[in-house]
């Protein structure tokens, strides 16, 4: 640090130079490299992975920073996905599309289950603005209720993990059991258009991929805003010495609830984008298994690193696709070993490895090359 005036030392820039580079790198890969290298099918697959990284991003805030491990993030991913799927399904179930049904105009699975009228909670989902609002608000409210109930009573750590896991189990059983209202185990399938725009074509997939990428970058920037605010530091402080924060005049429960709600909203955005790009939503993305798998994305990337969360998600899913295509038997061994290795050997994931091994050399080199900062610093958006 050669900048001498004392006040500058305590500046709190929106992002440090290295973070700007990371963002630029990630954006370049998402928006330029992958679209140029991959065919439409593979690009859609990457788009699907990127929707998971919204969940991982939320977990970084909630688990990495706040120390609150939720094993039920699939619930929020699923909520976002299902709410979006409800809208798309209603649009696909127009009277003329469904005229062969005994009750035309309602989703096919309802017809199969002898339901003759659209249930009340499906009705508002004919409106796209309502749906978008619901995708953001419903998971946040749900997380708020759970968070307030639990954190007010000082439930944390392992208990919270177990209870969120139970909630994921309950929601899965409920969705599977209530076929007539939810599509059951198959989920909501055969989705066609978004406000009249066919989402099944390659060009639609392509556009949705870029929309997804844009939303992800927006979420990263918001997460970064939270991370560098005092709230971000309070989360870290709370994880370390909860009582000290409490006796410094903060309502610890509200801060935890905020982190949990933010993670829920991120996950829900991911879920909604998943439905749009993949064209269906099913309970297999809601339960315990996907929820815990999403935790490992954040853990592999580094539980304290926003960018790491995205890279971790991409890497694990790429490995999953590659391995399960060629050695399906080995994949579960590999995934299991990955869990253990990350926890035992690399608790800070890829970001930790980068920080210990790569960054010191990099900065040494950059400093050796030129004395001034290597990158022109964009002005912090304060």
């Amino acid at each position, binding site marked *: 640090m050669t900048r001498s005036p004392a006040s500058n030392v305590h500046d709190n820039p929106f992002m440090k130079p290295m973070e700007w580079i990371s963002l630029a790198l990630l954006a370049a890969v998402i928006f330029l490299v992958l679209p140029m290298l991959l065919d439409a099918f593979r690009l859609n697959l990457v788009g699907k992975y990127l929707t998971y990284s919204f969940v991982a991003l939320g977990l970084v805030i909630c688990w990495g920073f706040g120390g609150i491990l939720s094993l039920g993030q699939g619930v929020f991913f699923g909520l976002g996905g299902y709410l979006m799927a409800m809208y798309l399904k209603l649009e696909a179930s127009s009277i003329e599309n469904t005229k062969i049904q005994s009750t035309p105009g309602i989703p096919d699975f309802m017809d199969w289950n002898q339901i003759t009228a659209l249930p009340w909670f499906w009705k508002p989902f004919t409106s796209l603005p309502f749906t978008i609002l619901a995708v953001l608000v419903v998971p946040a409210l749900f997380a708020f209720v759970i968070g307030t109930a639990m954190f007010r*009573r000082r439930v944390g750590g392992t*208990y919270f993990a177990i209870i969120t896991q139970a909630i994921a*189990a*309950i929601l899965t059983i*409920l969705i599977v*059991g209530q076929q007539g209202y939810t599509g059951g185990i198959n989920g909501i399938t055969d989705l066609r258009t978004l406000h009249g725009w066919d989402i099944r074509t390659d060009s639609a997939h392509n556009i949705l991929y870029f929309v997804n990428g844009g939303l992800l970058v927006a979420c990263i920037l918001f997460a970064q805003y939270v991370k560098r605010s005092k709230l971000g530091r309070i989360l870290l402080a709370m994880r370390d010495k909860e009582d000290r924060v409490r006796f410094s005049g903060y309502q610890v429960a509200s801060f935890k609830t905020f982190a949990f709600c933010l993670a829920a909203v991120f996950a829900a955005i991911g879920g909604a984008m998943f439905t749009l790009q993949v064209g269906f939503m099913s309970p297999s993305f809601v339960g315990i298994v996907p929820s815990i798998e999403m935790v490992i994305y954040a853990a592999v990337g580094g539980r304290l690193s926003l960018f790491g969360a995205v890279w971790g998600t991409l890497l694990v899913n790429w490995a999953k696709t590659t391995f399960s295509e060629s050695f399906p*038997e080995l994949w579960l061994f590999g995934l299991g*070993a990955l869990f253990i290795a990350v*926890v035992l050997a690399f*608790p800070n994931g890829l970001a930790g490895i980068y920080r210990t091994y790569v960054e010191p050399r990099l900065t040494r080199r950059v400093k050796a090359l030129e004395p001034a900062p290597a990158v022109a610093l964009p002005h912090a958006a304060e």
Partner: protein
Amino acid sequence: MLGDYSLTDLSSIFVMQGFAGLILFSVYTLMALGLAIIFGQMGVINMAHGEFMILGAYMTYLCSGFFQTHLPALFPAYFFVAMALAFLASGALGMLVEWALIRHLYKRPLDTLLATWGLSLILQQAYRTIFGPREVGVELPAWLIGSVQVTDTIEIPINGMFVMAVTLLITAGVALLMYRSRFGAQVRAVVQNRPMAGAVGIDTEKVDRLTFGLGCGIAGIAGSAFTMVGSTGPTSGQLYIVDTFLIVVFGGAASLLGTIASAFSISQTQSTLEFFLSGSTAKVITLLSVVGILMLRPQGLFTLKVRR
């Protein structure tokens, strides 16, 4: 819905469902006992607990096959051998896992959760590779088949009574071990104050390993009992893990009595509801009420009040 049944019908239903619930209760209790020791006493979240149970179930399956082909004369008694083997196999694997994995993570409970989840994936795939993806069942010896007719409408299966008896014995044994024996005192000493326990000459590492092994071993016996009520597949254990954790938390993690009471109330609620509602609705209602109660009373049913 109750109005459709006569009073005698209803009482029979409650007795029969109650008994069906008791078998579920036995499996839950054995699973939860092991977990209560590991989670309640050691604070380790063992997500692979279901896979330890399934190891016991596979051991029982192997035993039944072995006795059928090689020692048909002793077949009626094979179940006792199988239970001992299940205990030893799961216990030994548990001790190995403690040594290789858990002992590095005592200060990071949330990380034990992730690591043991990884372990559970590996074990599931190992079972799939060794025993095949299809579910297997065991052959019961003749004396365990059939039921006792109590009244015209009530009959009680013998294997159910057997499982109950085993559960009672093991529960009593665990209670004696934890509250009356020197080992139990050492376990509690280590749990309450690790450095102090070490200072007075308790080999804390050995106590940890034995405690974890004991918990896993009991899960193995649960697996043995499980073969009587369900068929065994590579992922059967995973279905029970959430329920078991809820039972332990609901009972108040450190209390064995609480664990048993909570296993009883949860299994009875579920089993009774199942008769009137669909299985999935019964499960949802049971789990929801447990989660609801836990949100209001997070410390569980039985806990001591101490200075934090």
